């Protein structure tokens, strides 16, 4: 089939017209479809708090004994439906108390002062600047939010526990059993977990979203301060500017966001 140059150019011209007309038709069609109604949209709540990097300062000078920490731990575990399991191998912890030598291995001097030696230290997920757990997670179930919180998407967790191996602070716990039967009173504000997922502290992301402080901060009687580490005017930055502080296993380069004034 021979084609003259003339007929080829004609067809090419019509095709070009057709292709360029499509987007115009689409634009018309879409504006008709919605009749001027707004598209549904999602947004952050109007009270939601934002930061460059959320951080915490724990003033250990204000801790006298473990009795100061019990209410903090139980308040957190209560609102997040953390089960109480007897078997220490199955234990689930979001925030707990430990000794200085366990919280700060490598910083333990041969002769430690008496107060620090026996003082219970409050430990939790450090919401690292460079979190190794996030790199280890094969499903991206754990990820770092824009505001610096290292969050778990429990929907996505397959329970491989790579993150637990990667976390140098032991901040993560695994649900070896269905946790529901071990929760005394289920708090309706937060879901429970199921067997086979990892969990940890979430810096109360659900409370920050409605403009509240994390629960542990609220009940700590001033032991814990919370704020934006990226803002020089924030309470945490001011505290850190005027007091000597330490962080856990800083040498690993994870950049923990929980500071301890000793």
């Amino acid at each position, binding site marked *: 089939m021979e084609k003259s140059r003339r007929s080829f150019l004609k067809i090419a011209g019509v095709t070009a017209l057709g292709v360029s007309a499509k987007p115009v038709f689409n634009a018309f069609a879409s504006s008709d479809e*919605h009749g001027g*109604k*707004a*598209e*549904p*949209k*999602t*947004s*952050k*709540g*109007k009270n*939601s708090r934002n930061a460059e990097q959320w951080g915490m300062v724990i003033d250990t000078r204000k801790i006298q004994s473990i009795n100061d920490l019990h209410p903090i731990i139980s308040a957190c575990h209560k609102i997040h439906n953390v089960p109480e399991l007897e078997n220490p191998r199955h234990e689930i912890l979001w925030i707990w108390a430990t000794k200085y030598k366990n919280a700060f291995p490598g910083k333990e001097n041969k002769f430690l002062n008496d107060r620090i030696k026996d003082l219970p230290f409050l430990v939790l997920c450090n919401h690292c600047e460079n979190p190794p757990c996030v790199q280890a997670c094969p499903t991206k179930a754990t*990820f770092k*939010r*824009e*505001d610096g919180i290292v*969050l778990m*998407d*429990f*929907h996505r967790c397959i329970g491989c526990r790579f993150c637990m191996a990667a976390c140098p602070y032991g901040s993560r716990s695994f649900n070896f059993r269905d946790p529901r039967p071990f929760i005394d009173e*289920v708090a*309706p*504000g*937060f*879901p*429970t*977990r*199921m067997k086979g997922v990892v969990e940890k502290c979430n810096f109360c*992301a659900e409370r920050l*979203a409605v403009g509240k402080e994390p629960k542990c901060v609220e009940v700590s009687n001033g032991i814990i301060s919370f704020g934006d580490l990226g803002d020089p005017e924030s309470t945490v930055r001011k505290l850190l500017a005027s007091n000597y502080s330490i962080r856990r296993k800083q040498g690993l380069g994870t950049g923990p966001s929980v500071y301890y004034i000793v």
Partner: protein
Amino acid sequence: MNDKKFIIAGLIIFFAVALMPFWFNFGKAAPAPEVELSKKAKDAKYCVLPKAEMKGGHMQILDVWRDTVVRDGERVYTSSSGRVYNMSLSTGEDSCLGCHSNKAEFCDRCHNYASVEPYCWDCHIDPKEKK
């Protein structure tokens, strides 16, 4: 080739037994369940999307929502009519269960009939089922 009659008789018996459940239930299809709206849902008249879209696509919406809430931290949904909802399955007044407070009649009845077992409730809490 002399066993033809045995084979055919055997086949007939086999199919009769294998298809027994179908003979038994033939013509006795369970009626599709009626979904009951709670009073609050009835009075509201609107859900986040038109009824047909909710009926056919609520699972996709829930799937998208859980990512939006957890990943992007966006928890407020403004519908095309300007109504504002809390993008949560069961927490608060303007969440899904806040309005559809009768999970047993609204969700479970249809899910049971269609034999779907969403694992939402393995973790999320129906405030009513709570002891």
